[in-house]
């Protein structure tokens, strides 16, 4: 068996090559990075427009919304950067090209995901970090070592939640031919993540908190830093939710991989 260290080393070796190859298509990289930049700016623009007409969103100010959005940008980056190959899963499964991932002495999820690395996601990550710093200065969040550690832990859990939702949804491809709607829906749902959960009414809020917990991607963990006094008890469970959800997604993936029979040739 391989150790985690060996996997990380292997990951860097593959990605270094991959980035080298990608750099030949520099224009493609620059254009899609600019696209990503504008998408993020557009969302911030929407916040700004909303908060021009109403003083706050469910009691949350513009700068607080920016903080939540920054948290969101950072939290979804690992999914976009490291798990980008997930989008191709259904094609590989349908066309039988998925077979090759069984032939190496490697963890299959690792091997599969290592085949793609989304560079432009790094731009989003950097933007998110910059916005987080900016908004927390504006909001006068007073950072202590403990809070900073808490930030890292909650970011990590939030990233796991997002990864788990997308991985689990994409696994539908192992059982259903027309599987895209499932993944499409899961991907769409993330757009609700950077909003205060209190703007959603009962059923939606319940869903986003307990069933498909996208509330844990940004809003709930952000609360810990913005308004710790309003935090619900379950927010403290976010690391457990992150790890638990990822384990569940991994289990679904393993089920899918083990039941995949390829295509009848």
């Amino acid at each position, binding site marked *: 068996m391989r150790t985690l260290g060996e996997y990380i080393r292997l990951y860097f070796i593959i990605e270094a*090559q991959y980035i080298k190859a990608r750099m030949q298509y520099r224009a493609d990289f620059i254009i899609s990075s600019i696209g990503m930049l504008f998408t993020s700016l557009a969302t911030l623009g929407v916040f700004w427009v909303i908060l021009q007409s109403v003083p706050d969103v469910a009691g949350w100010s513009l700068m607080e919304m920016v903080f939540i959005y920054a948290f969101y940008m950072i939290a979804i980056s690992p999914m976009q950067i490291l798990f980008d190959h997930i989008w191709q899963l259904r094609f590989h499964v349908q066309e039988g090209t998925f077979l*090759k991932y*069984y*032939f190496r*002495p*490697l963890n299959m999820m690792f091997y599969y995901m290592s085949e793609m690395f989304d560079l432009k996601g790094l731009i989003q990550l950097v933007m998110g970090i910059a916005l987080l710093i900016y908004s927390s200065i504006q909001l006068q969040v007073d950072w202590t070592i403990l809070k900073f550690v808490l930030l890292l832990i909650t970011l990590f859990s939030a990233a796991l939640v997002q990864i788990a939702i997308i991985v689990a949804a994409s696994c539908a491809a192992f059982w259903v031919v027309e599987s895209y709607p499932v993944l499409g829906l899961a991907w769409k749902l993330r757009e609700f993540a950077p909003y205060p959960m209190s703007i959603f009414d009962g059923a939606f809020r319940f869903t986003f908190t307990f069933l498909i917990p996208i509330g844990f991607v940004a809003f709930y963990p952000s609360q810990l830093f913005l308004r710790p006094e309003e935090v619900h008890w379950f927010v403290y469970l976010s690391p457990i939710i992150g790890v638990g959800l990822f384990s569940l997604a991994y289990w679904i993936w393993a089920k899918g991989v*083990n039941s995949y*029979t*390829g295509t*009848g040739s």
Partner: protein
Amino acid sequence: MSLIHIENLNKHFKVLNRREGLSGAFRDLFSGNYKTVEAVSGISFDIEAGEIVGYIGPNGAGKSTTIKMMTGILQPTSGVIEVNGLVPYYNRIRQAQTMGVVFGQRTQLWWDLPVIESFKILREIYKVDEKIFNQQMEMFNDLVGLKALHMQQVRTLSLGQRMLCDIAASFLHNPKVVFLDEPTIGLDISVKAKIRSLIKKLNTEHKTTIILTTHDLGDVEALCTRIIIIDKGKILYDGDIKKVNALFGAYRTLKLQVDNFNESTLQVLQEKMTSHFGTDKNFTVSQTEEFWTDITFDQALTPLSDVLNFVMKNFSVLDVRIVEISMENVVQKVYDGALG
């Protein structure tokens, strides 16, 4: 103990008979309307270390399904399968370290990277010693001039070049056994020859066990001493290739496009051929593609020119092709008792 042990192995697929439209898809979800495909049914064989075995049969015979079970992708429906003393399906990662696999035309190299980088990544994956890696790369270069391709992106290789690279790559980590599933499919004669000689040399170099799947009899003639013929999931023959060669080596199929082709053409042709050449000359007339009539015969008994002359004289022929006997024909002859 043999390297591969298979006993009464079965693999059945449940295939959904899909219903039309959205409501059909919805109903499929809850009430499956399944049929069972017996892709592999009750096969048994043992393969010893160092052997090179031709596993042949027509399309859909169950070859790839068997390979998928031997490589641990598929769980058998029932039966025993052991490779290296382990059950592949439950020991996938451990088995992968001692196996090499090439599956059809689907490359396992890194599509966007130069060839040499794929080999370097494989060195890391299989933890191949630097010194052994260099030796292997030298050997590959000697065999197929791999160095010339080192800097080329995999995506820019021709199918034949890619196949050579894929096969070489599957031997990089000195596996105990290599599975080659249809390595020559879609390649022209000269590339096929290159691939065959590469496989042959790789087998002798390290005494690597090779299971070669193909529906091209030329591949097995060139490479294997032992041949296993499979059809409809069952083994028809397992033994020395000499016996098979003696029977089919000289067989050829003459493909004809006859003017005014109709339902009776096949029968008329068969009757005329037998009455002219005699019943003991093993003529088979059949049809495998639209508008083409196939005459399969033994060149050792009847010279090709005689057959051609006779056909040209009696029919108005638009087009002619001569091909080696097809797998389908071989299988038919085995069913007819040709191998006793």
